């Protein structure tokens, strides 16, 4: 199928800690960088979609950009927020409502694990009072079971985290830019067995923006449009093992990531064997391991060998989280998925600098996953 939507510009405000800058400020900076990258002006933009957890109204960014009166829709879907923003922006173009628009994500979180009222997640209050309403515990449980069922070692978790910190060192926009040895990672404080402190990403601050247009108009703006071949969002089905579940049924089925992934491959007419560069949700090192299989890049258990052989490194056959992923960049929820798109666009254009995947990658893949069992997948190509 001919692509209908193209990405012509990407912009990022670095991820980290920025005293004195609000989420909206960072959003405006990311938008200006994306516009400059696309070679268009704010007044050319016909519509926008904004995603954030902390900022109630991302559309308030128009006060900093210019009051042009455009359609501006705000979305929130947990860790998959940016996938929803991107999917909605692409739909708006496919439907023919507008030809040129942008998706922007911004956030500014306090340090520490996310906290919220369980009742807002359709969980009873007692679930929080028992100490169960915490996402990191779910990730510990899921990878612990996966390791037992599929023969994954603690060393493999440390290798994944060490790779992502290493990739962060060569990414000037990353939050964590210091390499950590596998030993330091394994010996850091145990948070939720088997996951240690340095195997987790942390909440932080940042923003990212993407300029999209109707595919047939892309060459008006750029010689290297990156086509958005699919962008899907799925929620959990009965029997999936998902975060914030006080109980699970006896019957079991695959998670929301698998559903979003299969739908995206089908829409794009592209299979996992065609993908050259990959961004996966690495809330923790275990998630990256599991998501390799859930997104179709290997059978369950093969990660042990693939990771030991360096297959997921920048020079490997399946380069994953080449910009350091969430582990090195942290997670400003609204922006995280557009950071993934930013990296893939640079990789496909061949402008990723020191992080460039060799061999002229042509197809890129991104995946998000988070509470309460929501996943988003995008497939991009030259």
């Amino acid at each position, binding site marked *: 199928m001919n692509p209908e939507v193209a990405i012509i510009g990407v912009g990022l405000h670095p991820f980290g800690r920025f005293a004195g800058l609000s989420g909206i400020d960072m959003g405006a900076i990311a938008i200006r960088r994306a516009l400059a990258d696309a070679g268009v002006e704010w007044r050319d933009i016909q519509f926008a979609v904004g995603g954030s957890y902390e900022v109630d109204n991302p559309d308030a960014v128009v006060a900093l950009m210019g009051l042009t009166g455009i359609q501006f829709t705000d979305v929130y879907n947990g860790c998959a927020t940016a996938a929803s923003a991107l999917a909605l922006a692409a739909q708006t173009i496919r439907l023919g409502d507008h030809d040129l628009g942008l998706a922007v994500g911004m956030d500014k979180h306090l340090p520490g694990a996310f906290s919220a009222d369980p009742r807002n997640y359709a969980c009873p209050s007692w679930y929080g009072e028992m*100490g169960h309403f*915490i996402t990191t515990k779910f990730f510990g449980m899921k990878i612990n*079971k996966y390791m037992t069922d599929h023969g994954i070692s603690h060393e493999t978790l440390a290798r994944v985290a060490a790779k992502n910190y290493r990739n962060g060192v060569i990414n000037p926009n990353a939050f964590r830019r210091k390499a950590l040895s596998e030993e330091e990672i394994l010996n850091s404080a145990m948070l939720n*067995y088997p*996951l240690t402190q340095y195997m987790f990403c942390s909440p932080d601050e940042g923003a990212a923006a993407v300029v999209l247009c109707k595919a047939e108009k892309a060459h008006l703006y750029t010689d290297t449009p990156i086509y958005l071949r699919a962008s899907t969002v799925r929620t959990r089905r009965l029997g999936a093992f998902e975060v914030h579940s006080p*109980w*699970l049924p006896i019957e079991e089925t695959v998670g929301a990531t698998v559903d979003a992934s299969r739908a995206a491959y089908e829409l794009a007419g592209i299979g996992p064997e065609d993908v050259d560069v990959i961004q996966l949700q690495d809330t923790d090192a275990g998630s990256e391991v599991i998501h390799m299989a859930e997104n179709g890049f290997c059978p369950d258990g093969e990660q042990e060998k693939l990771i030991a052989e360096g297959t997921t490194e920048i020079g490997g056959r399946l380069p994953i989280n080449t910009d350091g992923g969430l582990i090195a960049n942290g997670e400003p929820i609204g922006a995280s998925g557009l950071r993934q798109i930013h990296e893939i666009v640079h990789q496909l254009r061949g402008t990723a600098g020191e992080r460039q995947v060799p061999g002229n990658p042509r197809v890129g893949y991104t995946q998000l996953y988070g509470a309460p069992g929501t996943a988003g997948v995008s497939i991009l190509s030259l």
Partner: protein
Amino acid sequence: MAQVPLAAGLFSWPSDDPRLLGSECSACAMVTFPSQDSCPRCALTEMVSKPLARRGRLWAWTTQNFPPPSPPYAGASGKDFKPFAVGYVELSGEVKVEARLMETDPAKLQNGMEMELVIVPLGKNTDGDDIVTFAFTAC
């Protein structure tokens, strides 16, 4: 001092034979915990109360080595926090229940091990009463 359950309708208490209180769909036999008004499988609203089995097998587990944010966490926080283990226990043919585990040593926890329901102290409420909650212990 009074012992009060963490929430009404969660488990039978006080009782010599405490049970978790779930619900079962009259139409498709789906079991939930805690009880709820609609069936997550068939979406009908014909749920009836169902006391759950006391024993099951551990299906997945981890440890909670740092204090969860308080509130909502009602147990001791700060330097009084004691790490705990948590897991899903599969009650055969009924449901998998997420619960605190009495064993906290990773070397002693194994998926498939047999476990039994116990009612244990969690913390104190604002009246100074002991809050009790459900947990599972190896048996």
